[in-house]
């Protein structure tokens, strides 16, 4: 027999609670369950960190775009068609030789959905939210990132409706790379600030 359905609705009490809520709201005509399918599909397949990576790669390759991104990130990002929920008011912050940037939301889970998609569990959980502002170096060590002792660290606590995208430094040895090739070096974590851009491994793919 096929086994392509999932069982957690039957096994997990919280799954049952969510299903009951969806049932109640649907029966009352307050929500359209098909709308849920579209939302899930959007954030599973259409909106994710590849969006942000393209923004970063373009900024690396195009000084005029980088300047625009610095001055008006919302408009610069919108020009690549990345808009919408939890990306309405964007700020791009650029890592430099002197300063490393790290983004957190200590009060909830504010995150730039339009360029990074849905946040990972750790970003929303107490260990990261509590420690990023007081012990960022300790936090970064847990991501395998050790910064030089004299590197300045700037932590951006997203307490209002501005959403922050970190633009990591462009790795050496990537001169002449296309935006598509460069984007492959930009991870989600690098755009939160818990990682750097990947070093190139030989010639681009």
């Amino acid at each position, binding site marked *: 027999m096929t086994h392509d359905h999932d069982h957690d609705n039957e096994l*997990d009490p919280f799954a049952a*609670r*969510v299903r009951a809520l969806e049932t109640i709201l649907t029966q*009352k005509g307050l929500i359209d369950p098909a*709308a849920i399918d579209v939302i899930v599909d959007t954030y599973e397949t259409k909106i994710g960190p590849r969006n942000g990576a393209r923004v970063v790669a373009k900024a690396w390759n195009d000084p005029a775009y980088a300047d625009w991104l610095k001055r008006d990130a919302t408009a610069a990002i919108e020009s690549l068609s990345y808009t919408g929920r*939890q990306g309405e008011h964007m700020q791009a912050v650029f890592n430099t030789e002197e300063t490393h940037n790290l983004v957190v939301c200590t009060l909830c889970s504010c995150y730039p959905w339009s360029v990074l998609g849905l946040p990972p569990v*750790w970003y929303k959980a107490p260990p990261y939210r*509590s420690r990023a502002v007081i012990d960022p170096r300790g936090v970064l060590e847990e991501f395998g990132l050790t910064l030089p002792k004299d590197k*300045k660290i700037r932590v951006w606590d997203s307490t209002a409706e501005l959403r922050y995208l970190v633009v990591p430094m462009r790795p050496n040895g990537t001169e002449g790379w296309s935006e598509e090739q460069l984007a492959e070096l930009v991870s989600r974590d690098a755009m939160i600030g818990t990682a750097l851009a990947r070093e190139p491994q030989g010639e681009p793919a």
Partner: protein
Amino acid sequence: MNGPQDLGGQMGFGPVAPEKDEPYFHAAWEKRALGVTLTAGGMGAWNIDESRHARESLHPADYYSSSYYQIWIKALETLLKRHGFVTERDLAAGKAVDAAATPKRVLKAADVPAVLAKGGPCDRPVATPARFRAGDRVRTKNFNPTGHTRLPRYARGKNGTIEAVRDGFVFPDSNAHGRGENPQWVYTVVFDGAEIWGEGADPTLTVSIDAWESYLEPA
């Protein structure tokens, strides 16, 4: 409120433990939780500030033992009950029992892409000019409001510098409680690590918050 959500500088939660190649969802019900939360929000009965306040109003023991999607669903039940869409009897039965309030609108599948693409901008014109300019020294208020606020405890009563004047934004402290949007100027305020954490602070650290004007006074 000094609730469980206000986590900056708290200790004892252990390591961050990032998950390699983390999936967007860890169970099928999380997908439905995301969608139910967004579609129910689409009725337009509450705003994002009221949602956040419902989440931070969970009992601390409940908040800290819940995953974020669990926090969302528990707060959503509160909101749905508060606004007359769902009753305890509905929840106990697991199906619709009582009649519901009439929503302003129902988010249909066909409208989802446009609604998500539009988002919910919360910048607003402010009648008065900005009180502070970049470079100004400011002190954050020391207060302990029982309602919603976006000034974290660790940044209260601290001296900092205005780094940027942003825009006028809806004021969450009133908007969360149905007392109007009352937009104010928002500023990025940067603090030295030592000003916030004192003895033993990382000397290379600066921390910024985005603060509404009424959180600030001249230093």
